[in-house]
């Protein structure tokens, strides 16, 4: 992959991290907008996207609040809104909750995207097209 292709690939790839990692110094709106800051879309388009995704996740009322002042449930929604804002082609999710998994699955089905989940939950196997099992014990034995 050339440098440009690599950059393009990473621009289309977003992580949905366990723990949400919302920045406490930014408002909910700025947190959601973070991926768009690095992708170079215009302000007007960004505003439209944020408005639309905020409505979708029912977080319009908290856009101007700092993430420290919202509940865990709301944080999860904000994190998802941030993940899906730029309509990524590839999503990396670590230990997503059941609800997050559901939303992400619906998204990849609609947008024909790829979801890579790292999880300990065996129930997710039924959705997977490909499974890579990492057995830490085995790995340790090999060393």
């Amino acid at each position, binding site marked *: 992959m050339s440098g440009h292709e690599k*950059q393009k690939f*990473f*621009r*289309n*790839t*977003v*992580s949905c*991290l366990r723990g949400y*990692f919302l*920045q*406490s*110094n*930014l408002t909910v709106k*700025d947190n959601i907008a*973070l*991926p*768009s*800051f*690095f*992708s*170079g*879309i*215009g*302000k007007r388009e960004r505003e439209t996207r944020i408005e639309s995704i905020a409505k979708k996740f029912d977080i319009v009322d908290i856009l101007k609040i700092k993430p420290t002042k919202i509940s865990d449930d709301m944080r999860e929604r904000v994190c998802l809104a*941030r993940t899906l804002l*730029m309509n990524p082609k590839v999503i*990396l999710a670590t230990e997503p909750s059941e609800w997050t998994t559901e939303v992400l699955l619906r998204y990849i089905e609609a947008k024909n995207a790829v979801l890579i989940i790292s999880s300990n939950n065996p129930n997710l196997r039924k959705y997977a097209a490909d499974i890579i099992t990492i057995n830490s014990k085995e790995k340790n034995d090999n060393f």
Partner: protein
Amino acid sequence: MIIFNIIKLGHKNFLMHKKSSFCFVAFFSILFSLVVFISALLGFFKDTVSEKFEAATNGKVMVEIYLCQGSYQPSMKGEEKCEDPEIYNKEAREIAEKYHGDLIGAIITYMPKNGGETISVVPESATKFINAKPTYYAPDGKIPVITSIGYNDKISENNDFYIIGNYPGDVRSIYFGSDPNHKGFLDKFIYDSYTYTSHYLVFDATDKLENYLAKNEYSVYRYNPLLIFDNKDDAYKLYKDRAGVWEIFTQTLRANDDDGRMHLASKYMFMACVVIAIITIVVVLSLAYMRDEKIIMLYRSLGASRKDIAMIYFVDTLETIILTAVFAYTIGSIASAIAIAINKDAIDVAMARFFGN
């Protein structure tokens, strides 16, 4: 568009860490201020050198006069008197007569044809009035040259010259008329760094010097007559009448070693400021990286490139540095003002002794 967003993020980052940023700012401001204060105190010690200068003088004062704007410059089409050294000397003689002094020659400054560093040649008749003994250090058959360090490389290539470069204490001038253009930001910041200036002196009247100047296509750039006075008061009267455009030499500006040390110390103060600035940048960046490792990873996971991350922390660091500079300059100015207030008495005493009231 990306750049504005990145700058915004960098600024938000700076605000997020404002508490720790302000700690840095305060800490490094105090360090800067200490440097400025020490520099100002060194200014105080320099003024005590002025007293020695007064105590050692035997009454002869040499004055380099500037008769017109920019002095005599053959290449310049200015006033008529500026174009002819003879007219220039005539006016110098008139001034000498009026103020009871003697014309003893002129400092001629040469400039290479294509511009660049100039060489100032002092007439031999004037060198005995300057407390310089370069001949002690020059090997036989060499032309002694006193020059700033900046000249060394250039002139050293010519074997006809012997450089006495690190000899700043030997020839001194004092600027009584201050040139406002001479005072840059750093000159104000490093107190008194411009007051004492070493002069470049080349022994005249040798074929080798003329050959060197001809070979390297030097031409006359400035022509400044020198007057010698037996009486300090006469010299000071001339100074007051034509304030601010000329310099005074004296043969007895002693305590050269002390003065030279102070001059060098002043330069080290500047170096200290540069080193502190570099340390500030390195510390701020390293701590920002350690502190924000998770945030950096988050940005990367959201599509930020390495350049974007670097830009965010560049903005963060730049804001910290600007704030440090503003704080340091403010606190440093106060420190300098205190030190100058301490010095004022010493300066007044030295000037009063030298020129009378």
